[in-house]
């Protein structure tokens, strides 16, 4: 499959589906590319599957996804499922793998809507078997209805942690404890933003409802825990932590971790787009304008991949990027586009109102940003926080130098799991701001691809790789 399309949308979550449908309804030819076998993204994963658990367990918000998948099904969008994008070039070529073969398409416009990824929550022992991200636990629930019957502890902070706890309880699971790591000081800073948040009170009401559910099920809820440590002989056996100066230990066989989500910036980083450090959300945001347009001609961004806002915000941003790209493609008149964009932008502002409150309340505890020395931060290459600190001592001032020194970020995950942590450690060791420390240079492929697939793409017409021994290293 090679060829040219008008618009290619990467990611079939709320932002991607909305962008694709909106542009297609304006008359553009649209291809929607997604890794999963069905639309929905992470938030609405398996929404179209018959085997998934029902509304009573996953909640009303999840059911909203069905409206989006229905409009997608009714549209002219060409949806390529189970397709992994492994490189996007500034010339808007998209390289991807589908059914074990590589394909290349060129698009007149691209909307990147590849969503969020869970923020890593490194602490001593977090790599033990039995410890997983809450997101991975939620995937098991959404796709297979799997619920641990005993020995489950959830730890971390953020609204998603409470939501997953509630979903597990509704599905008949038992939770030994929910260990919250939200620092006490966060409540004070968040209070300032409460009036703004009350402009759109739905989010807060939902949060309080989730907490009430936990109380009803008499789940042990520990607050302001610090110095987390997962312990066990080759496998998780207990979670240790401090609270109010005292050590605690809770026996468990499954530990699900969550301290919020951050934009997945692998594609935008590989494109070398400028990224700004968001000091409140403590993450990188690829730079874009109010329409989602980037510095690169014809490349737009939408959804959590560009900044965390949640599913409803993502959907609105998707519509905006869809309309803006249709305008750029000439399938939507400029005047009409302006009116519709203005309407979507005003809804977006309304939906964004509670963000400062939520971001301040659930700002991650510093102990997970720059963890203790004996914590593995790069799981692929097993590099510890202490090793990163020693490379700083040798003269490394940035994350790209630590790659050379200790291979951190060079494994198959391409730094997704350690990129933020390594930069935070360097920033704190060298007392420099994150914006100055920077981030890994992300090199293709974004996802591993076989040499056979690559070789099949090769083009004899292009200048053959010259082999001159004079220049051998």
């Amino acid at each position, binding site marked *: 499959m090679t060829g040219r399309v008008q618009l290619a949308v990467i990611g079939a979550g709320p932002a991607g589906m909305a962008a694709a449908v909106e542009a297609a309804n304006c008359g553009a030819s649209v291809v929607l590319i997604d890794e999963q076998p069905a639309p929905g993204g992470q938030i609405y994963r398996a929404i179209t599957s018959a085997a998934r658990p029902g509304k009573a367990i996953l909640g009303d918000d999840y059911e909203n996804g069905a409206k989006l998948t229905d409009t997608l099904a009714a549209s002219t969008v060409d949806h390529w499922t189970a397709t992994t994008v492994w490189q996007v070039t500034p010339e808007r070529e998209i390289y991807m793998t589908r059914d074990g073969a590589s394909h290349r398409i060129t698009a007149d416009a691209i909307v990147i809507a590849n969503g969020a990824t869970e923020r890593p929550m490194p602490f001593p022992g977090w790599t033990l078997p039995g410890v997983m991200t809450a997101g991975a636990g939620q995937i098991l629930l959404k796709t297979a209805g799997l619920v641990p019957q005993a020995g489950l502890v959830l730890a971390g902070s953020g609204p998603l942690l409470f939501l997953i706890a509630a979903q597990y309880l509704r599905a008949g699971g038992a939770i030994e404890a929910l260990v919250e790591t939200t620092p006490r000081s966060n409540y004070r800073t968040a209070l300032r933003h409460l009036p703004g948040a009350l402009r759109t009170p739905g989010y807060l009401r939902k949060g309080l409802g989730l907490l009430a559910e936990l109380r009803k099920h008499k789940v042990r809820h520990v607050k302001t825990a610090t110095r987390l440590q997962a312990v066990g002989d080759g496998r998780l056996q207990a979670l240790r932590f401090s609270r109010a100066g005292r050590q605690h230990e809770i026996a468990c066989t499954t530990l699900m971790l969550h301290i919020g989500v951050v934009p997945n910036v692998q594609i935008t980083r590989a494109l070398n787009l400028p990224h700004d450090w968001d000091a409140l959300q403590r993450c990188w945001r690829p730079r874009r304008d109010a329409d989602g347009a980037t510095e690169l001609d014809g490349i737009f961004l939408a959804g959590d991949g560009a900044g965390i806002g949640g599913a409803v915000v993502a959907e609105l941003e998707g519509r905006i990027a869809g309309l803006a790209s249709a305008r750029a493609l000439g399938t939507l008149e400029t005047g009409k586009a302006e009116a519709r964009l203005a309407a979507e932008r005003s809804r977006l502002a309304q939906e964004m109102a509670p963000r400062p409150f939520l971001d301040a309340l659930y700002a991650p505890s510093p102990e997970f940003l720059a963890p203790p020395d004996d914590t593995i931060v790069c799981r692929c290459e097993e590099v510890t926080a202490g090793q990163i600190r020693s490379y700083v001592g040798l003269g490394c001032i940035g994350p790209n130098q630590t790659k050379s020194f200790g291979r951190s970020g060079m494994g198959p995950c391409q730094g997704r799991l350690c990129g933020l942590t390594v930069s935070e450690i360097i920033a704190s060791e060298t007392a420099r701001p994150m914006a100055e420390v920077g981030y890994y240079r992300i090199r293709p492929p974004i996802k591993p691809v*076989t040499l056979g697939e690559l070789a099949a793409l090769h083009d004899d017409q292009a200048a053959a790789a010259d082999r001159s021994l004079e*220049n*051998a290293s």
Partner: protein
Amino acid sequence: MAVALGLQQLGRQVTVFDEGDRAFRASRGNFGLVWVQGKGAKLTDYARWTRQSADLWPAFAEELREAAGVDVELTQPGGIDIFLSDDEAEAGVKRLQGLSAALDGDYPFEYLGHNALKRLVPEIGPDVVGATYSPMDGHLNPLYMLRALYAAFRRAGGQIDSGGTVQQIEPLGTGFRLQAGGNMIHADKVVLCAGLGNARLAPMVGLDAPVEPLRGQVMVCERIRPFLKFPSVQVRQVGEGAVQIGDSHEDVGFDDASTPRVISQIAHRAVRIYPLLEHVRMVRSWGSLRVMSPDGHPIYDRSVQCPGASLVTCHSGVTLAAAHAKILARWIAEDQQPEFVESFSAKRFDVRQVA
């Protein structure tokens, strides 16, 4: 870093000024070969110098292990240069024969046809015509080497200043004044080892470094069972089992991106050489800029106009690291003119222009 380490070990107090995190760093794109075969066909002293460094490497690696506690994983089992056509094979053999003649026959290599090569490396594919094998060649882990050089340098008392790019070097009556980041620093002697940055810095101290970038692209694949003992210019397997594949030569200026077109060509060639690589996954690809002089050979110079300033630039920084630390540093510190070094002055380019 090799020169800095050598100088520090000679008892000089050395400070290395280093650029920011995303500087163009040829050392980070290195393939990791300690390679002799085929080099110096146009300048016999380059062949001699290269071989001398390769001979110094085992002792230097041992020294780094002791000084830095880092094993650079040096092995020198001999290297193979693989040919996919009769023309390639003929040119390759001819080049080595020429070198051998220029070096009075002291240049061990042999040509292996397909069947002979298959006995040595059973995994080669049917498209492989043959290879030249030379016992002089080897490889190491270039990232471990870099870390070892830094650590050994620090432990010997050397200083690293990562404050930013050196903007200005001003010769004084005795010594030099450097402006780096926002700081002014005085130094008795200055050694320019700034790679592509030397082109800008050299004229400030009466030297010339006509170097230009030449992009190479390299890829690394996931770890697989060890199958390849002998490194080649195209493919090598590292200590942990990962397979590294390169290399391209593209004159694209200061652009160190990697491009799918070139990467797919490199993959195509690698799979023809070793068909088992077909199902192996590429984990990472990157481009890096080589530091190339007009003839591809190193430039070593000491300034006549500004005594105390010298310049070191080369393309094969891994192969030559041992000679840089052990021989060249002595030349810079103690005025000992080593063999061959006069062949590498930038004056050779002036002569060519006059002629």
